[in-house]
């Protein structure tokens, strides 16, 4: 099975908000979890921000591993800046969901800073 999803009709020219990200997430999550291929077409999207990608793509890492996501989810029509934010969000999400030590380390820094006072 293959799904091609054009993003512009859903979000307009801006991919910024959590709400828009959630709409995309709901459409693609069930497909990828079934092992279907999904291509997101960002042609026509001009502005990107991390809240959108965190919600649309980042939270896929909650119950899918990076191999599944990378092999089943494809992106076309993404501007270089959009691609840059997406890459960073995916790296961050992977660390966040797959390596609990990443989050723990932030909390350890906090604890240490509190002790340093």
């Amino acid at each position, binding site marked *: 099975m293959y799904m091609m999803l054009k993003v512009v009709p859903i979000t307009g020219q801006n991919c*910024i908000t959590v709400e828009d990200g959630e709409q995309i997430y709901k459409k693609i999550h069930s497909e990828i979890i079934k092992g279907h291929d999904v291509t997101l077409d960002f042609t026509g999207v001009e502005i990107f*921000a991390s*809240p959108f990608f965190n919600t649309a793509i980042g939270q896929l890492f909650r119950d899918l591993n990076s191999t599944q996501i990378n092999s089943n989810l494809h992106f076309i029509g993404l*501007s270089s800046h*959009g691609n*840059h934010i997406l890459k*960073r969000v995916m790296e961050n999400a992977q660390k966040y969901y797959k390596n609990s030590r990443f989050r723990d380390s932030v909390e350890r820094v906090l*604890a240490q800073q509190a002790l340093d006072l």
Partner: protein
Amino acid sequence: MEIIFHTRHNAICIRSPRRNSTSESRFTIGTWILFIWIKIESHSVHTIYIPRINDEKSDFIILFNIWSRCQTLQNFALNFSKCDFLRQNAVAFLGGIISNIKSNGGSVSLNTHTLSSALRANLEQNGFLAAMGVDAPPWDGNSIPYREDQSPDYHKISRYLQEKWLGKGWIFIDPELAKAIVSNVLEIYSNVFTHAQSANGVFSCGQNYPTLEEIKITVVDFGIGIPQSIRDYLYNIGQDPKIPDDKTLQLAFQEGFSTKPDLGGMGLKLLKEFIQLNQGRLDIYSHSGHAIIDASGEHYEIINSFFRGTIVNISINRDQKVYILKH
């Protein structure tokens, strides 16, 4: 109700008749004087003289002192007779203060007759005077208009940044790069609406400085501030929230750190990265913390002042030669 002066007690009493008795409240003369003074003080109009305000650290401290003064009093008049110029940070900040005072039931009047012609032109052009109810329509110039956003309408904010900031032809910029910059600045607005709990939203203003080869934009909110947001988070996860203001700003820039219980923590990091790549400068003041991000790195300090909200001041370099986004 009777008001009686007791010479023996040196006091004025209020006597209220009840069905079967009379209650009497007795206040000394001193207490009455204090009541009357408080009553007059809370209703009297306080004049605040606005000086020339640039965007150095000392200028932000002046703004925070004005904010601090406005916390205890209600009615103000702003006098500009000692001011010949206000930078974008002052315009956004004063707009926010005025909005906050009004929403708390206070009043603010602008003594527009004290404006010099140059300052009046500046405040007219950027739409500040019109936003304050003065009959002075804005006009097109070197300003990025003063703006108040009560809700996260990112499409409108995005248009504002694209059309009024980068789309004015002040810089010869690749359209792709312009969109990248807008995306980064939108991250600030997103942070405010997600974290700041700002009742009055966000206030923005910018300015093109042709001689400085810089374009500046300021975004300010009067919410709980980054330090409080982080301390609340620490408390909720069972950590000791006693952490200095400068350290909280440092944490806010740490990748992966978010005060929300889900994935996040990218906004400020992306903005920092962009500013450093483009040799611009980013200043953030929140509570007594001050973060400075520029090409030389990042620096965090405690300032001798306090502002409960958060103000972000961005300077980007107009020189196309250094204005490159690296992926």
